[in-house]
């Protein structure tokens, strides 16, 4: 699709006025961690409308500026982490931290096997494993709010009238392929982030803050309500998060790391 010159101009304008800091960060991390690609994108502060709201919450949530990985962590990158941290090998990880499906797509403890998935997002990793990977790089998982805010940015080449939730639902209609495509294979959004939708689901730090069900399990039961009941795409992300536990590993669930701006 060909874009009119004006929209290119607008997109350039929307791109974050970043890079020096992010590049510095990347350079430092590469030195410390070998081949791990750690380029981070600066996400400017802003507001967004969360899908789920407690009764007493404001309808707009403010997110401070932060850094977010430009793509999901790949199998090859995760292998560097496992080599440096043998306690996270498939055969060593305690059941407290991952179920027995952990890294089941790999051929061995330190062997991805299938070369076709080296640059695909690493999946079948638990929240604990994702959390440990980010910690290893001096980073953290993004919060749910940060992730949703960053993922709400539109594809950089989308038709002006296209509805993001329709694009996402189009993805949900297709089953997960047997071999996940590489990162940077779907779309880049106006913040410069790749594949926020359309490749894999992603862990967030506080996924266990989602409580869609009322009932007597929860303090202040009944106070959580949905902000936009027509947003099926968002509903599915939240329902998926609610169904997870931190030890679960899923073939279509990966992650990327975030970082505070110092």
């Amino acid at each position, binding site marked *: 699709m060909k874009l009119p010159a004006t929209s290119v101009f607008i997109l350039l304008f929307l791109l974050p006025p970043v890079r020096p800091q992010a590049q510095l960060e990347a350079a430092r991390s590469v030195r410390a961690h070998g081949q791990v690609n750690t380029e981070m994108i600066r996400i400017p502060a802003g507001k967004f409308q969360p899908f789920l709201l*407690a009764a*007493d*919450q*404001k309808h707009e949530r403010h997110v401070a500026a932060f850094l977010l990985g430009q793509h999901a962590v790949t199998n090859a990158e995760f292998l560097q982490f496992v080599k440096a941290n043998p306690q996270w090998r498939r055969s060593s990880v*305690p*059941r*407290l*931290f991952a*179920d*027995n*499906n952990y890294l089941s797509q790999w051929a061995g403890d330190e062997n991805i096997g299938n070369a076709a998935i080296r640059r695909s997002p690493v999946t079948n990793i638990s*929240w*604990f494993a994702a*959390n440990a990977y980010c910690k290893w790089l001096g980073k*953290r998982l993004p919060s749910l709010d940060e992730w949703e805010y960053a993922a709400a940015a539109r594809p950089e080449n989308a038709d002006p009238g296209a509805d993001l939730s329709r694009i996402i*639902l189009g993805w*949900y*209609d297709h089953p997960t392929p047997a071999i996940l495509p590489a990162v940077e294979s779907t779309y880049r959004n106006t913040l410069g982030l790749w594949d926020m939708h359309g490749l894999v689901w992603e862990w967030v*730090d*506080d996924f*266990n*803050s*989602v*409580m869609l*069900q009322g009932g*007597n*399990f*929860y*303090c*202040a039961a009944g*106070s*959580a309500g949905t902000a936009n009941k027509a947003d*099926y795409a968002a509903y*599915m992300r939240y*329902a*998926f998060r*609610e*169904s*997870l*536990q*931190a*030890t*679960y*590993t*899923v073939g279509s669930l990966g992650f990327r790391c975030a970082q505070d701006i110092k």
Partner: protein
Amino acid sequence: MKKILTIGAITIGMIASSCHGKQLVTNHISCCPPTGTTAPITIATTLQAQSSIYQLTGKWTDEHNQSLELRDLKGKVRVIAMIFTHCTYACPRLVQDMKAIADSLPAAEKNKVGFVLVSFDAQRDDPAQLARFASQQGLDDHWTLLHGDPRQIRELSMVLNVKYQDAGDNTYTHSNAILILDKQGSVIRSLEGLEAQTSVADNEINRLVNR
């Protein structure tokens, strides 16, 4: 309509697949049947060591301003809940339920069981506030109240399978669970909801104390 049905099917599929790799202890989400009653009998000792929450590292501070790690809690059966002391609704009942369990223990078991409250509220529940709360509630030295940093609190909530959300203004929406840990720190049972389940807890504690 077709779209709605498709979405429903996908959602169910995802929930089912995420239940597939279930952990050993009970969980409170209705899509997965609870297994807590059978797990303690069937899991092997090595798996129990693997499932000990005392594998989490990091320093906590108790209500006496003493620094400790979770593994320092090893050796006693532990009854644990996550609360915040400014909570007006559910947490007082959780604490009442735990006190009822403490009061109902036979004399021979009292020194073999410890009660632990961990606060969600890293900001306001500092050791001094935890000490005030312990004194208001009449919690004796069988109780340990823990203050930690937000990242540790999130990690602990993950191993205990407690959901919580910072709802703003230092209040927290959270699942209500009292968990019983064996002497090695594996979660053996999770008592959910705001109903006193003292006799269930007593039976479990009795079994674990004598194991």
